[in-house]
């Protein structure tokens, strides 16, 4: 089981790296995120044993990600409405001589 999951993870890693070099415009990011989610689910389900876990453990595991979705959704809801607020692009590091 461990070997199969590890091979699956390596194949997904190869796939995501290869796809990143193909110009797909705005589709590159969603594809990379989708493959990352697939890898994370493999680790969660098999390596972290959610497959054989009780419902309570699965609920605890899901809770963190549910709150993360709320965090991301509300952050986007805010910043997507702030088109005119852009931090001035200047450097803060001292100039090297």
């Amino acid at each position, binding site marked *: 089981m*461990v*070997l199969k*999951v*590890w091979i699956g*993870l*390596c194949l997904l*890693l190869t796939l*995501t*790296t290869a796809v*990143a*070099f*193909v*110009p*797909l*415009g705005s589709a*590159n*990011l969603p594809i*990379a*995120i989708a*493959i*990352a989610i697939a*890898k*994370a689910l493999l*680790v*969660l389900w*098999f*390596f*972290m*044993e959610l497959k054989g*876990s*009780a419902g*309570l*453990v699965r609920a*605890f*595991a899901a*809770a*963190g*990600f549910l*709150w*993360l979705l709320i*965090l*991301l959704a509300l*952050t*986007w809801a805010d*910043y*997507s409405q702030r088109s005119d607020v*852009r*931090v*001035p*692009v*200047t*450097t*803060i*590091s001292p*100039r*090297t001589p």
Partner: protein
Amino acid sequence: MTDETASPAPGYQYADAAQASEVSTLGMWTFLATEVLFFGALVAGYFSYRIWYSDEWIAAAAHTKVILGTANTAVLLTSSGCMAMAVWSQDAKAKRATSLWLAATAILGLLFIAIKSYEYFLEWKEHLVPALDFDPSRYGGVTELFFTWYFCATGLHALHLLIGIGFVVFAAIGIARDRLPAGMSVRILGLYWHFVDIVWIFLFPLIYLTGRNG
């Protein structure tokens, strides 16, 4: 979810060893939920900057070392496989194998840190380290912002990994000497290790696979 490394007599607050194991599993998942939000805030920051600065942000990410980053991802995924084998060996009551798989996990963790350090060294040589050695005549402000985020994210991840390596080495030695401290469990340690792996699974495309075409 019984764990034979748990001491035969669990603490008086537990009904039996199985309940003690279940409680510690839930405790680790609760901690990991807070960690999801801890690293989640960094990811939210990444997306905010990426939406604001779009092309400049993507161009900044292209300064990272994609070959080293990909190699490191493979190293970390393999270390997770070794950790899963350690838990599996423990369930099979093979103490020596458990200890050796844990040692392999720790060695791969150290290899990850070594490659990451080399990357930091290369970035230092290229004057890409904000506040310490950053060359504004070569790179723009968005690149500085990206690398500030990059060093925060990868630095915090590396710190988590170093803490994990410490515990894994401790457990490997403890099992080899047949003296694993009561309450310490390879299974719970595995949950933490795999979580640190998951964090990297998401950091990897955001950092290294961005700006590789066009």
